[in-house]
């Protein structure tokens, strides 16, 4: 799974050295749009009243725009918005959209609730459904409103009033947005209830034919999930929502003085052994993306067990990512990226294990105890890839090693005491989030500037290792001939867990911003196009918006198969897209025409909104907090497009001869 909270707002806005800043792209597009707009206005006016008069017409419109925008009245805008709301309400599309949504939820249960992560399926479903319906609804009402008014001449009832064109456009955008917002709020609330209800369940412990609970030997292998290392006995729960859990009796050994297990109701027995306290307690396995708390009352055959509602579905992890990830090769040399083990998907870089200096270093900055909800135990979460070149020990997963170090910035002097922790070894688990609780005080060594060992002991991660907030995490593969894969977002400290409902709202904010852009585009297009063409144009913009990444790849030639003509040729001749075309004159002509089309497509992807920037569904689906930077980026994109579309709509309506 890939959920990244990169880049930061500043890097996005002004560039990070590798990518161009968004502000520069925006200014460029703005300049081109202004010039094109002036030129187009001049050409249209020239057709109407000749080139000489055209210059003055364009100048008049431009000059009049200032007062039009700066003297807008909120009251009049409100009145137009109310009118837009009334108009849309009369069309009953809102009711229909909500009905469709209700039907979706009603029948959605038929397809949901199974698989490894039913929570992901549920969230995806409601977000996708809400997004689709709300965008369609806003597109329809915005596309038909103004053209219908002009066609039915009802626009006169408004145009004859002292209302500015800017107010007419802005009022409609706000009116449609208000309708969409109301419906989206309703959908969001219903969705949250639907997801919560759909995932809510509990189990009972399965009983034998004699009606008794029987714990047996630990034999979990066929489930694909391992039993806990300290499991003594296990049994299963009943099957609910297409899954079941294992209930283990585990031996929880704690040093004297350590606090007892938090879930006291799950303890079966406790026993003092020397200077340790041994608790035997129940634990429910984590399956289908969740677990349950369990409580036991009574003893022996009279014991009664009760499982709580599902726990672990609604997550909003707030990660602290490393500022940089650096890979090192077998001889310890820094590399731009990790090894490629032959995957088509090159998101993760790999380091090899055994007698090799290959490693990955995660450099954390701002590693501050105040950011952690519990700075005594730091949850380090890892999603590592594994690749074997030899079968090795088939019974064990590939082992990884973690080590912490302090580090200094570039140009800074090497400190007299450098801290390095002892190696933390563990078996990796692919395609799952592994959580390692790193204690604040960990055993390690202190080295001098020349690498000489000064002392060993237990040291504080914050105060000793990272007094300046700089912490290095070194990840190694420990098995000869095997590889571990990782990317920057694959390892992070979970600093806190945010409230789910708040994250849900933030996730829904993305849909709201998409809706705002669609409303603006719909109104802007409808100022100079007929309703069906407006609808088509808006649909195209939405499609381009959602698939902008793929379309951009097509424009950059990263997708084989050529442009539209070449693709068509390949389709009708059933030619594979990887087969090279003969170098004939016909092919050259075809490619030349295609290059024009591709150039146009590439240009379009620059001016249509990239809806993936506004889509936060992955954060909700995988249980990550939508951070402020993401929302700020999305807000800036939304404001840029809405303002641009509204201003463009204003000029189009301004120059349109309503009387004609």
């Amino acid at each position, binding site marked *: *799974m*890939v959920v990244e909270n990169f880049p930061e707002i500043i890097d996005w806005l002004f560039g990070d050295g590798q990518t161009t800043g968004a502000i520069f792209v925006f200014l460029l597009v703005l300049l081109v749009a202004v010039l094109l707009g002036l030129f187009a206005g001049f050409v249209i006016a020239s057709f109407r009243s000749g080139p000489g008069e055209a210059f003055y017409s364009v100048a008049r419109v431009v000059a009049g725009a200032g007062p039009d925008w700066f003297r807008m009245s909120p009251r009049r805008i409100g009145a137009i918005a109310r009118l837009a709301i009334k108009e849309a309400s009369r069309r009953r599309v809102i009711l229909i959209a909500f009905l469709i949504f209700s039907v979706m939820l009603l*029948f959605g249960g*038929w*397809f949901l609730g*199974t*698989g*490894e*992560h039913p929570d*992901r*399926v549920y969230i995806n479903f409601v977000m996708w459904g809400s997004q689709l319906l709300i965008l369609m609804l806003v597109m329809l009402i915005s596309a038909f409103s103004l053209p219908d008014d002009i066609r039915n001449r009802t626009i006169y009832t408004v145009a004859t009033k002292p209302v500015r064109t800017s107010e007419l456009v802005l009022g409609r955008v706000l009116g449609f947005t208000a309708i969409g917002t109301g419906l989206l709020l309703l959908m969001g609330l219903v969705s949250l209830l639907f997801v919560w209800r759909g995932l809510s369940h509990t189990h009972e412990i399965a009983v034998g034919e004699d009606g008794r609970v029987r714990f047996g030997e630990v*034999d979990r*292998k*066929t*489930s*694909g*999930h*391992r039993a806990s290392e300290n499991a003594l006995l296990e049994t299963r729960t009943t099957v609910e929502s297409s899954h079941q859990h294992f209930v283990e009796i585990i031996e929880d050994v704690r040093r004297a003085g350590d606090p007892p297990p938090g879930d006291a109701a799950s303890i079966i027995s406790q026993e003092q052994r020397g200077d340790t306290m041994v608790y035997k307690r129940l634990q429910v396995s984590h399956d289908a993306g969740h677990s349950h708390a369990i409580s036991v009352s009574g003893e022996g055959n009279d014991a009664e067990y009760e499982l709580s509602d599902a726990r672990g579905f609604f997550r909003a992890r707030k990660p602290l990512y490393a500022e940089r990830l650096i890979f090192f090769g077998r001889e310890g040399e820094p590399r731009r990226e990790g090894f490629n083990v032959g995957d*088509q*998907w090159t*998101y993760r870089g790999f380091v090899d294990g055994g007698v090799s200096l290959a490693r990955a270093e995660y450099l954390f900055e701002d590693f501050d105890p105040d950011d952690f909800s519990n700075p005594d135990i730091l949850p380090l979460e890892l999603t590592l*890839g*594994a690749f*074997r070149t030899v*079968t090795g020990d*088939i*019974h064990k*997963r*590939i082992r990884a090693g973690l080590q912490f170090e302090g580090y200094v910035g570039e140009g800074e002097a090497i400190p007299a005491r450098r801290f390095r922790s002892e190696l933390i070894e563990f078996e*990796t*688990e*692919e*395609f799952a989030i592994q959580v390692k609780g790193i204690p604040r005080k960990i055993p390690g060594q202190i080295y001098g500037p020349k690498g000489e060992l000064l002392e060993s002991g237990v040291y504080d991660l914050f105060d000793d290792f990272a007094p300046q907030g700089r912490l290095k995490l070194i990840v190694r593969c420990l098995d000869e001939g095997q590889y571990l894969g990782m990317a920057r977002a694959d390892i992070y400290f979970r600093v806190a867990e945010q409230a789910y409902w708040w994250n849900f709202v933030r996730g829904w904010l993305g849909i709201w911003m998409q809706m705002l852009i669609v409303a603006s585009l719909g109104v802007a297009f409808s100022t100079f196009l007929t309703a069906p063409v407006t609808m088509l144009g808006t649909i195209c913009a939405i499609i381009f918006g959602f698939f902008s990444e793929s379309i951009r790849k097509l424009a950059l030639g990263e997708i084989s198969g050529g442009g539209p003509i070449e693709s068509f040729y390949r389709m009708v001749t059933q030619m594979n897209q990887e087969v090279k075309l003969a170098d004939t004159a016909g092919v050259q002509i075809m490619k030349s025409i295609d290059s024009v089309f591709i150039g146009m497509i590439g240009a379009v992807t620059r001016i249509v909104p990239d809806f993936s920037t506004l889509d936060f569904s992955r954060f909700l689906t995988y249980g990550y907090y939508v951070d402020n930077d993401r929302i700020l980026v999305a807000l800036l994109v939304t404001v840029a497009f809405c303002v641009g579309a509204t201003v463009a709509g204003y000029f189009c309506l301004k120059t349109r001869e309503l009387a004609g």
Partner: protein
Amino acid sequence: MNPSTSFRRKVIYLVLAGGLLIPLSLVSRPASRDRDNRISDRGGVLSQLRESNELSPARLSEIDPASETMKLASLGLRGLAVNLLWLQAIKAKDEKEFDVFASTLESLVKIQPTFIRVWEYQAHNLAYNVAVEFDDYEQRYHWIKKGIHFLTEGIPYNRRDHRIFDNLGMFTGHKFGRADERFQYRALFRNDDAFHEEMSRFVPIDQINTPFGPDNWLLAYLFYDRSVKMVDVEKLPQHRKDMIFFQYKPAQLRNMGMSMQAEFRAGEYARNLWDRAHGEWLEYGNRPLYFEGDRNRPPVTLESLTQSIEKVRNLREDLDALAPSGIRNQLLADKLARLSPEDREMLTRPIDSLDDAELAHYREFTRFLYRDSPVDVQVAEAASSGNRRLADDIVKRIREEDFKIQLSESFRDTMNYDHWRDYAEIESTERGIAARQMQFDAETLTRRSILTEYTERNPVTGEVSRKPGAIQQLDGAYSIWAEVMNDYPQLRTGPLMNEIVDTMSGPGGYMVLRRAAGLDEWPDDFVLQEVIDHRARGQMSFDDHLPTSELLERDRQERGRRGSMVLPDRPDIRFRLEQPTP
């Protein structure tokens, strides 16, 4: 446009739309049946096409509301939805989001439920391509089961298609039983009660039990059995060629035997299993098989090859009786002159007296003598005019029988029929079981590092007895295999001999054990030396590094003494020659 023009146009459109309903109703007219449920009217073209392609919901079993809802929800854009879902599935798989991949497939099959290739392809993706991505074999096992579970979901939509069951057979048999992790998978399978319970919905699951626990190959056997019954009993369409389709079922028993003898010490159960495997393989050999499914041509049976050859020989004698005496001999004389005296002698012997190797030679020679030349036609042409018609008829029958021979030979070669028949037969005998037991014991002793003879004290009686070590156990097994090779010379090449060679030259094999035990010399009178030489002569030794007699002899001559080759440290290192003793 005035209102009347607009109205007129609307009326015309309405009439045209209404008019189109007439041809539509004609082509869609459903088939009707009489009281005896026989089709009295085949209906319109669309109905007929639906019927012939088995696309009508009634034939596709019950209508699934979830599937129909999904189709309706796509608002007529099913094709587009299918494409989008395929793209999403491919992307999810490439980016290793396997739970997204699996849930996308759930949606995909709801809108393509009767497209059998989708079930086959995506189930293979889950069980083979996704499963292998996991580092942990327990998770791999879990994803193989997901692929199997996915396939079973396709059964209600494709009740008339045996291919789902074929795939279930392959996944449960081949994937669990042949993968690198087969020992682990099979062990997991034996204890997977929940999975057995799930499979009990499709096959009589109690039939997969063995004294060692439930066996995956037996489950595969039951799936293939069901597939065969769909074709044989329910007379449903068969989508694979006879030769391939009918061999799956008996092959599972053979595979099971091979897996079991690698995991457990062979005994009575193994002997009975091999006996059953041999019987079912013979049953396959006696089954009429059609060439390319063409029911208009006569079928062949693999076991009838000898009879067909005998029949052709008899027909040729009948033909010769109609022609002037000695004509065939004259025609064949030139060709026979090119053969060696031994080969000529073999051609004169009764067909039943030939062993399989000689039979293969015989088939080559007869092909050389007859098939590539019109000898039979020339003999028929030499017949008197009164016998000409009869002679032509015999030639026709010879050609028909010859076609069967060709087909039978081709099928037998493709399926390695003879080899697997003999293999199963040998394994079901006492000596086969004994050889396997010795090999198993040798492996057990090797694990305990007992390579040569050792003594064992009975803890109760205190009696001390001598026991063979791993090397002696292997020597014993090789002696039995040498006898077998003597009786079945055709087995000197093929899977059985490859297995035996693996025990000699593979890691932890005979050569390595001898070296480890200080027995550096290759035995002068090694019982399987002739077989090693035979493999080398046929260039089938594939660098097994086993010393041939020629190599041993050259070594002796070079040194002018009777010496033995020193074994290599590892099988892939060239031989070092023993230092001459002064």
